[in-house]
């Protein structure tokens, strides 16, 4: 072995040893975090109160889009809620693989009309989305909402895994949960629930509809359902609540499945007060708002008024 060869071989061995040792050191005790940075509490979508207008309006009309328009006009009209160029997210209930007549999902005609109203008011973009319970492709299709909302000009988003952000709900019960982006990255949030019976929360109307903004293991929310509902309602703070009571699911909610379970009420409620809206909506199912524990808790938490007449109630028929 000559000197040159000795140096070369020794040098190679040292280099390999250095790489080996270096790799070991570099990865020693290094923990890779799987958590993305948390999004802080989202902006408040509510608009300022206007005491000259009623806080809640209910319109009854067998022409459902007309009912929506008259109820909305009574509380100030769409221009009060949506400004030019704004991005609007509409959150109907598209939870189940059910047809419109079975009243498990929001009436597709109302959703389409709401999309049109927002666009006419100058909205830059209108998004319609929900995190369904059943397969979203089936729910969006069979509810009729995909087709009707797209036809009206909305962007319909089916939730996919990379559309979620880990978000701090900052609730009493709920902390960090994955939230679908369009519910955060928007200017206006319009909640469009349908009135349904629910065996645990008594009724599922507006505030319960916000279960559909979080993904993950949301079946665990039922272990403290009242606080979970209130936490999510306080987190979402919608601009406007439009309650579909055209068809009401009286039994076997929230899935239904039989036309026997459905009552035709031909009514639409528009309000800026989530608690008042749910309180009025619950009456279709034969309850008072004060009978429903999550509505009571919501009022205690300062989200609104159970006594919906106190904020100015108008009924149009």
């Amino acid at each position, binding site marked *: 072995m000559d000197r040159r060869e000795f140096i070369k071989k020794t040098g190679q061995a040292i280099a390999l040893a250095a790489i080996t040792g270096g790799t070991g050191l570099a990865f020693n005790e290094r923990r890779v975090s799987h958590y993305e940075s948390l999004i802080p509490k989202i902006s408040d979508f509510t608009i300022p109160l206007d005491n000259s207008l009623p806080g809640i309006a209910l319109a009854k009309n067998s022409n459902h889009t007309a009912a929506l328009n008259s109820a909305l006009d009574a509380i100030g009209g769409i221009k009060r809620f949506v400004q030019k160029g704004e991005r609007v997210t509409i959150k109907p209930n598209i939870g*189940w*693989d059910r*047809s419109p007549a079975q009243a498990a999902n929001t009436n597709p005609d109302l959703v389409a009309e709401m999309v049109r109203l927002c666009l006419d008011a100058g909205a830059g973009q209108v998004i319609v989305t929900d995190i369904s*319970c*059943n*397969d979203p*492709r*089936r729910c969006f*299709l*069979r509810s009729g909402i995909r087709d009707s909302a797209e036809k009206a000009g909305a962007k319909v988003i089916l939730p*996919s*895994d*990379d559309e979620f952000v880990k978000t701090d709900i900052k609730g009493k019960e709920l902390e960090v949960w994955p939230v679908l982006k369009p519910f955060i990255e928007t200017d206006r949030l319009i909640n469009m629930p349908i009135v349904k019976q*629910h*065996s*645990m929360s008594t009724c599922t109307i507006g505030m319960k509809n916000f279960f559909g903004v979080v993904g993950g*293991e949301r*079946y*665990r929310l*039922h*272990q*403290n*359902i009242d606080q979970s509902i209130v936490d999510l309602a306080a987190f979402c703070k919608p601009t406007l609540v439009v309650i579909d009571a055209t068809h009401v699911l009286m*039994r*076997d909610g*929230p*899935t*239904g*499945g*039989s*036309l*026997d*379970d459905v009552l035709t009420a031909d009514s639409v409620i528009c309000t800026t007060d989530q608690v008042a809206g749910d309180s009025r909506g619950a009456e279709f199912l034969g309850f008072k708002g004060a009978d429903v524990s999550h509505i009571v808790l919501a009022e205690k938490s300062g989200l609104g008024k159970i006594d919906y007449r106190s904020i100015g109630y108008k009924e149009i028929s």
Partner: protein
Amino acid sequence: MTIKQVKNLRRFSQVLFFAIFFWLILKTNFSVNFNPSNPNEIILPLPVSIALQFDPLTALGTLLANASLYKGLLWSLVILIPTIFLGRFFCGWVCPLGSLNNLISEIPSERIRRKGRQKIDSNRYKKYQRIKYYIFFFFIAGSLIGTLQIGLLDPLPLLARSVGTVVLPAVHTAALGIVGWVKSLGIPPLGRAAQIAYDFIAPLVLNFRLVHFHAILTIAFVFIAILIMNRIYTRFWCRGICPLGAMLGIFSRFAIFGLKKDEKACNQCNECLLHCQGADNPDIGSTWRQAECHLCLNCQAICPKGALKFKFFPDQEITKSNPAPVQKIDISRRKAMASVVGGVLLYPLFRSGDAFGVNADSRLIRPPGASAENDFLARCIRCGQCMRVCPNNALHPTFLESGFEGIWSPILIAKIGYCEPTCTLCGQVCPTGALLPLTMKQKVGDESTPPNRIGTAFIDRGRCLPWAMARSCIVCEEWCPTSPKTIYLKDETVINREGVTVTVKQPYVDPALCTGCGACEFACPIADRSAIYVTSVGESRSTKNQLLLQRKETRKV
């Protein structure tokens, strides 16, 4: 035609048919429309399983096992009848698995470049090529007795199954992994580019969401082994194993199209052997074997002297160097008989075990529309189309849940996905009628029609939150899709650890209403093993596997 032209023409045909086959598998997903005659019903507009119905072996196997040919399977005659006249053109020009084997065999390697002589020798007819005929007889005899096993090795179901349950999900997993890795590098433009590329490719080839299938390692093993063997023997599968190739070989016995060898023109260059796909002895001096020939036409095109010609009614001269011009299938009658006996014995062997009937797995939940197990096993070819089309990833290949006899047949695993009550896609894609196409009315039921039931739910009270742990939960009842709900709740006051009395709603199952869809098992918050689970008892397809004295079968809509 030059060899290049022949090869290009054949490649065009192979690529075309492979593309159609692959595209149909990709389209076996939620590409749906509303049924024009019933706007509530969702249907697949494309006949996505049509390729499988062109398979003559599937047709023959199911015909023997059921004494009837299920709807589209008559299409297989489009392949079979021309084969009778021409020979195995299907293998060389159409079969997508054959094309894949062809492709992998032809990737250049040292074996081909350096060892030409070895390659020539390996392309001569070999005794191992008889094996496929014995496999064919074995499976066909089994079919005749009523256990349909041909799907395990029938190339079209095999490829559909392998692509649908192994290749595409693995590609999806890899794609997500790559995108996630690129994003984790912390270079935002790179991460965005990866996402854009993924968003572009995903809707074309990937599923709506990542699916996970049960027991796919065994499917992958068979498929990969088939592909790897091409590197040892050119088209080993097609030459030695494929039972469809064997069947087509047998049907080409009276072919009027064949190879005419001109002994005088031949200069013994052996180019024909070097390019032979089927190992059918195209050279002068050995016997050409019609039943082995894939009709690739390479020999005719490569022959520098024009000594080999495919033609109709080739009149063969018998000469010293061409001893017996055309020999029919080379099999030993004794071994063929042994294969038949073996195939026949499959049935008593399978059915004397306990997996069928007497001790069937309680979790063997067949898809909706499945016929009774006996009939089902005589029809299912394990093509995996039902598993691929299921929007909820509910259907999976079995491993041993239905014994060796039912390996890779479909099973519903509710923890991964439940059966959507209004969905009828699996029955729509089944090419053999193992799953009958139900209408939505037959699936959900109404005043006059009982619903299709696949099992019954049971509550594990030791794991259920309101039953065992004094905690609230009603998720199973919330998800229950029947109306009225199968799951009902009773208020119960229980005392928790702190000694506080709390009221919880405890769930009960009404077995008369349950359809076994598994939505409750899927939604149960007890993540690792649900506190409510479905077993097969009560399934519509069985008269024995029941629990109730009688039940009211219809419901109001």
